[in-house]
């Protein structure tokens, strides 16, 4: 690791945070779709969904938070792609800087932007009746899971950001990620699904993560769900990071 890594990352992080500060619409658009889903499901479909929970918004929120992250990380791919296309990526690469700082700055920017979006979504959820008896420790645990999930998906987003040949290609990869929560326990209990769909839903990462957060929200023992959720996040993070490193090396060689 280069001795300038921290300073260079900080300088580049400041740059992309300015981008976000000057186009806060990226945070608004990130938050709008999950909020729309939340309103739609709570006020339109929710009445017909039998979850066994006392309030549907309490049941729904974990999945909505994951959708927020899935839609937010596509901006990382988008910004990285624009940097490469505009030539400033190359300018940075031809300078005596810690080269990985360019990617880390984008990843940390994604983390900050997504956390802001998540706060907005939780705020709306509180307005429409979301309640939890969670203590500070519980909130920290939820935040920890969401941070890990954001990092994992952001490194995933770095791959199309580095390899895409068009803006659309750079951000289209996130659609399946946004749809993944629909085939999970995020909106309806998996027990209501037909066999093969149910098998998929119960063994994909979103269900484990949603269940872990939901148990934290409702102050039930989290148990194995938490470890499965953390294992998924860490697994995706490691694989995505390695693939991104390969894509990066190809891009700069």
């Amino acid at each position: 690791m280069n001795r300038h890594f921290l300073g260079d990352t900080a300088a580049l992080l400041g740059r992309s945070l300015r981008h976000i500060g000057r186009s806060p619409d990226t945070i608004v658009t990130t938050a709008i779709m999950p909020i729309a889903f939340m309103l739609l499901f709570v006020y339109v479909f929710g009445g017909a969904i039998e979850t066994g929970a006392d309030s549907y918004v309490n049941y729904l929120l974990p999945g909505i938070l994951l959708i927020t992250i899935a839609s937010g990380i596509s901006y990382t791919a988008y910004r990285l792609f624009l940097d490469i296309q505009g030539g400033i990526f190359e300018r940075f690469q031809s300078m005596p800087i810690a080269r990985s700082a360019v990617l880390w700055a984008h990843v940390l920017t994604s983390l900050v932007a997504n956390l802001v979006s998540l706060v907005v979504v939780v705020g709306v959820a509180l307005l429409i009746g979301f309640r939890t008896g969670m203590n500070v420790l519980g909130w920290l645990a939820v935040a920890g899971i969401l941070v890990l999930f954001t990092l994992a998906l952001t490194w995933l987003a770095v791959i199309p950001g580095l390899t895409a040949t068009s803006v659309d290609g750079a951000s289209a990869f996130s659609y399946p990620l946004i749809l993944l929560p629909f085939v999970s326990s995020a909106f309806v209990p998996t027990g209501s699904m037909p066999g093969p769909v149910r098998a998929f839903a119960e063994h994909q990462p979103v269900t484990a993560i949603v269940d872990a957060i939901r148990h934290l929200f409702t102050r039930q023992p989290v148990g194995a769900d938490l470890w499965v959720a953390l294992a998924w996040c860490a697994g995706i993070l490691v694989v995505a990071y390695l693939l991104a490193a390969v894509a990066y090396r190809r891009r700069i060689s």
Partner: protein
Amino acid sequence: MTLTLRQPSMLTGMDIPSATQPTPEPAIHVRGLEKSYKDLRVLRGVDLDVARGSIVALLGSNGAGKTTMVRILATLLRADAGTARVNSLDVATRAADVRASISLTGQFAAVDEILTGRENLVLIARLRHLKDPGGIADDLLARFSLTEAGGRRVGTYSGGMRRRLDIAMSLIGNPPVVFLDEPTTGLDPQARLEVWQAVRELAAGGTTVLLTTQYLDEAEQLADRIAILHEGRIVVDGTLGELRRLLPPATVEYVEKQPTLEDVFLTLVGAGTEQGQR
């Protein structure tokens, strides 16, 4: 190593390469450079020397390999064969050190459009780990007539202003070798003159400049030496005078001297710099 120490301040950039060097190695030294993209042999054994403090124009038609060559010298691309040394450092084995002694201005102004001009300069100064990034930024804004525009987002700049900022960003840290890849492509005539002026000032300060261009007049105007890249090799390398002597001596003709369209255009619209009022 023959690193020449340079003043950190841009305004005192009039340093001269150390005179103690008996025969200094050229700033850029290229031998037998080859590069192919799959079956396409872009560079087929390029030899080139660029003396310290000189401006050399690499001339060639589109697709001749000018950009490929610059990208190899700027450590962005690996050559298939041959050697290239920049500031006496091998680009393949000492890439990080090479990056500390060069700057690259690519074909398209690589500036951050969302940041202001000043913020762009401060960012680069910070990434070059210099003290007082703000002071360096203000010096350069003044030097490139961008002081008034410095607080505006680069997205609002004209093409010429953007290019000037781009070049100003390249000068931060006074790298001894500067690569300019088609610095005036797509610029209007005034902006071209502004860029030319900036390049001349750069060389006057002792910086070695390798510029690529497809404009013959640009090479004539700026370069101490001109190298023509054709079909993957340097086919000619010399001063403008030497190149002229390759052809039969000039015949004398009487031609009524008409003003060129460029003369007319510049007279009508004024050749002054924009000073950022666009």
